[in-house]
């Protein structure tokens, strides 16, 4: 019954797939161009040029290719374990070059760098195949899903715009038609999100055997990453159905509008006008699903406890997203029931 909406969804998924395909091609090009840097051989070879450097190659029982570089002149020792697609584990011990003695831990995607200081020596451990938090994937997938949701979010207004004679003369109740159309879009939005995750996972696979982290904050990111675009879609769907004559303007101004509201909420209310603008923007922001996407909130001490605060309010924020989806969808259907040609 909602063949037209399925066609729309199919068309936009095709476009999404093409865009993601371009990213994939770029990733392949990048992979080819950096392939020589992905092996420690070049660095090892360069180090061997230094006088006095001793290089040892061994193969461990599990197949790991171990390379040990010893540079007595520089007091530097590096152990490189190459596990092929399982990544590399590199331990570098060298004299400290700075005064600070604090340890540091940096994560960039799947690369983890841990630096520690003992006396005058610094040990740096590099792991190139750390688990990648799903949070990263979902952040990218959400951008795509929100864009697709924004584009699709006028299934009923598009029918009002010149096709009511088709839509309303089908042998199904209006509510069922609306639910079917919105259902098709929901599937499309989730599919766009999944496509993005898959595309970026393949990109990562080009470089290493990716391991995904679904624990803790990541599982919440997945749930919120699906719920928020759907709530956003439902909100726009309600707006476009109610303001069906200007649905294109609603869709075009939606994301800029949200950004403006977001900026206005952070205006410091130092005078009456600013206070008024801030309060109005804050009030509006409460109706926007994005306002409830947060994985960190300041504690009473002004510091941020990411895990604890996100976990404690996650249920509430998810409930809000679900409520938005249901209420906004109901508003759209209610209006659709009253539409006349």
């Amino acid at each position, binding site marked *: 019954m909602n*063949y*037209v909406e399925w066609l729309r969804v199919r068309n936009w998924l095709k476009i999404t797939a093409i865009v993601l395909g371009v990213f994939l091609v770029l990733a392949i090009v990048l992979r080819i161009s950096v392939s020589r840097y992905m092996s420690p051989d070049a660095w090892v070879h360069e180090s061997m040029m230094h006088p006095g450097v001793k290089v040892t190659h061994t193969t461990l029982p599990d197949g790991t290719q171990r390379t040990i570089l010893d540079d007595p002149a520089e007091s530097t020792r590096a152990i490189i374990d190459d596990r092929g697609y399982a990544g590399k584990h590199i331990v570098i011990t060298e004299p400290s070059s700075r005064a600070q003695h604090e340890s540091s831990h940096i994560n960039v995607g799947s690369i983890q760098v841990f630096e520690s200081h003992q006396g005058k020596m610094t040990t740096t451990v590099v792991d190139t195949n750390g688990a990648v938090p799903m949070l990263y994937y979902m952040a990218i997938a959400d951008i795509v899903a929100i864009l697709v949701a924004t584009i699709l979010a006028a299934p009923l207004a598009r029918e009002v715009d010149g096709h009511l*004679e*088709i839509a*309303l*003369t*089908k*042998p199904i*109740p209006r509510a069922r038609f609306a639910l079917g159309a919105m259902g098709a879009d929901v599937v499309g939005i989730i599919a766009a999100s999944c496509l993005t995750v898959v595309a970026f996972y393949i990109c990562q696979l080009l470089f290493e055997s990716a391991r995904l982290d679904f624990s803790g904050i990541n599982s919440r990111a997945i749930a919120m990453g699906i719920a928020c675009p759907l709530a956003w879609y439902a909100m726009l769907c309600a707006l476009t159905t109610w303001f069906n004559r200007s649905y294109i303007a609603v869709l075009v101004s939606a994301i800029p509008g949200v950004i403006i509201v977001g900026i206005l909420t952070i205006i410091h209310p130092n005078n009456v006008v600013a206070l008024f603008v801030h309060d109005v923007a804050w009030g509006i922001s409460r109706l926007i699903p994005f306002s409830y996407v947060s994985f960190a909130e300041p504690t009473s001490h002004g510091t941020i406890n990411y895990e604890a605060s996100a976990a404690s309010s996650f249920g509430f924020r998810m409930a809000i997203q679900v409520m938005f989806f249901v209420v906004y969808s109901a508003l759209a259907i209610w209006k659709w029931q009253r539409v*006349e040609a």
Partner: protein
Amino acid sequence: MNTITISNLRKVYGSVAAVDGFSLEIQASSVFGLLGPNGAGKTTAFKCMLGLARPTSGEILYDGRPLQPATFERISYVPERSVLYEWMTVNEHVEMNRRAFSSFDAGRARELLAQFNIDTHKRARVLSKGMKTAVMVALAFARNTEVLILDEPTAGLDPVNQRHVLSLMINEAAKGNSVIFSSHQIGQVERAAEHIAVMDRGRLVLEGLVDDLKADRKIVEGIFPNVTYTLDGIANDVRVARADRTERIVRLVVTEGADEIAARLSRAGAAGVRVLDLNLEDIFLYAVSPATATADVVAKESSS
């Protein structure tokens, strides 16, 4: 579906009554023509019949029952303007109908589209107005419904395809189905419809079988030698439904005794007096508002 009953249908937009107290009963196995000038309320009446517009008051019954979603399995509708999805191909429109309606015959649709010379791989946006009408007509006729409601189904079509659409309508009626259509082309209505209704300003002003309406009345026409003539009370005769005069020409619509009225007109000084049969155009023009029907028609009251 045997009958469609419309009772006291009224649809008001703001302060304007687009349809006002419209009542009609349409029987099965017939081609029913709905005539009316622009803005008469024909399209609004169709929309109300199909639930596309909510009547302000009144009732529409299909075989004695109100319109239900399931009723649309038995009704097909061609609106007056294109409602095709511009970005979809004709084939996709066929598929859409196949999925939506259980009785839709995709093969028949393709056959009809071929008869209209429509390339089914084309997107609707590249079709001309007439082609779009043809696509909508083909899709409607391929649904095998008991009732076809067609709002200006020949708009934009060339004469060959117009004739084809009229043939399709007559064939449907021959199969026992009802065809209700509106058109501004009275010749087409006269050719296809056996039953007509005329709407004007939202109201039903005339309704009946075309043959009966034609047989009921005659036109008596005469030419006077100059414009300063009198009708000697002929216009006030109860058998004269209306009298129109255009300078020296007088046309009288007579319900009975046409020959006697013609003789009286001759005695009053008119030359070339003749008795004519009414055609549907005359019936239509006389049914709608006299002052606006044509520029040179004068109401009976003003001529006497």
